[in-house]
């Protein structure tokens, strides 16, 4: 039986500890700002100033229609929509980048600082430690993504209302990306980092290996986004695939939560 109170104690301790780390805190604050404010401002706001030219042949003709009224849109509007979709991808990258930073500190950091030994000596199960550690990576990441998404949504909406005349992101697709794809990717990256932590002994090594491996998950963001635009049924398949991947990675992570292995790999 898993005692969630024990896992939550680990989670709250990690939150307190993370808040004391300037380096992690900076990543935690700066990254949502970059992805949620800075990038949209420099890439989407310029569309407010572009001319509203209509042409029969545009630079976006190579693309399949991104909206139902694609052919009626001006080049500026098509450019805006194309840029927003690209920016969505950037926003979802947070699900991969942030867990790499946080897990490296909260999980590998326990090994690095040898505090993991003290945890292993306490009357708690491996699963409770695992759950606590996973929560302390997933929860701040998801909060950061939600905050980033909210600011991103507000800024993008301001521009789309001006340029398109409606809230472009106020649709189920964007919410599906933020509510389903992002947390599932976060769980996958976190568990990948746990695997990485069993192979490395320092936070720096974990970050280097973890960030390289995490990049292999980026095609999943692209596939999820494209399937949402072109085939919602295919999107369901992507979600199921991500769910299965998470399940397998959790099983792998739990299997790796072996006291002896953790101790002897220090």
């Amino acid at each position, binding site marked *: 039986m898993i005692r969630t109170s024990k896992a939550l*104690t680990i989670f709250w301790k990690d939150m307190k500890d993370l808040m*004391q780390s300037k380096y992690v805190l900076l990543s935690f604050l700066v990254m949502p700002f970059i992805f949620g404010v800075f990038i949209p401002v420099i890439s989407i706001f310029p569309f407010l100033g572009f001319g509203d030219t209509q042409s029969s042949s545009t630079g976006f003709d190579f693309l399949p229609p991104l909206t139902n009224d694609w052919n009626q849109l001006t080049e500026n509007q098509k450019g805006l929509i194309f840029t927003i979709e690209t920016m969505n991808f950037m926003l979802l990258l947070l699900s991969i980048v942030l867990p790499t930073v946080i897990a490296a500190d909260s999980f590998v950091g326990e090994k690095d*600082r*040898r505090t993991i*030994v003290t945890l292993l000596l306490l009357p*708690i*199960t491996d699963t409770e430690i695992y759950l606590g550690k996973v929560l302390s990576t997933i929860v701040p990441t998801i909060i950061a993504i939600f905050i980033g998404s909210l600011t991103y949504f507000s800024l993008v909406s301001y521009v789309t209302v001006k340029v398109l005349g409606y809230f472009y992101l106020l649709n189920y697709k964007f919410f599906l990306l933020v509510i389903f794809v992002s947390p599932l990717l976060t769980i996958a990256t976190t568990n990948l980092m746990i695997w990485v932590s069993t192979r490395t002994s320092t936070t720096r090594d974990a970050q280097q290996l973890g960030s390289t491996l995490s990049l292999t998950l980026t095609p999943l963001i692209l596939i999820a986004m494209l399937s949402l635009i072109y085939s919602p049924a295919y999107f369901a398949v992507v979600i199921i695939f991500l769910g299965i991947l998470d399940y397998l990675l959790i099983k792998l992570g739990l299997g790796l939560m072996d*006291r*002896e292995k953790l101790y*002897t790999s220090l």
Partner: protein
Amino acid sequence: MIETTELTKIYIDAGGQKYVGVENLNLRIGKGEIVGLFGPNGAGKTTTLNLLSTILKPTKGDAIVNGYDIIKNPLKVRECIGVAGDTPGFYARLSARDNLEFFGKLAGIDNLESKIMELTSYLNIDNVLDRKVGTFSKGMTQKLLLARALLNDPALLMLDEPWSGLSPLAQVELRDLLTEITKERNRTVIISTHNLVQAERIVDRLLIINHGRIIKDSTPELLRREFMLNPLLLVKIDPRDLRIAKRIIDGTNHSINSISEQDGTIEISIKDFEQTPDLVKGLAIEQVRIHEVRELIPSLEEIYIKLVGGNN
């Protein structure tokens, strides 16, 4: 309290090479005993503690700690032990209070706040409870470590190198604290250390371990007797009286090992320490001016070096 049967730990390194951590360890440690675990680096001391604290699983054999099997009931074992390891394992960015609260909550301790206050004031660190552990001196960290290990009022306390890195003064302070804690609270204690000077003043029993095996299981007193086959007495007298003293000693059944004419020191090989008063009386009757009389009892350190020195 502790009973091990053929407890064995074999490590296998990345290259598949096997090496012995501990081998066929058969131990019986009773409630309230204070046991010192001595041995060179890599002898198996930490492996023994890690097996008893359930971090490591035995390759063979078993152990019962406070009535619980380390393999079948590791959680129960961890509930009744307190460990102060060789690395502190504190969260340096958090305060001492936060650290103790965290470990206390995970250990499921009732009345945690009052326990923390009671222990930290006893250990004289209550005034630094809200300071970050990263700013603590080595001595304060050791005290905090002790507080954490005692938080759950453990039936078995395991200390791994408690004096490591401490100044001589801090070592004495910690030793006195440990003496108080261990005697007053009637708990079983295992101290793994290289510091025999400090340990020999606390332990009731000592286990000398080498190459994963117990090579000596004795009390400090018995061990000293065993290694004191030739009792030696050191007598320091006025150098002007050396001739008279030599004559008196030669007339007894004792023999002189060495004489220093410069400072008047005579090392006497005595039959039995019980005869020391008679010898001193004989010297005093002949007006020999005696400055010092000392029985040369081997220290545990000397015995330890004799026992393991040859093999290491």
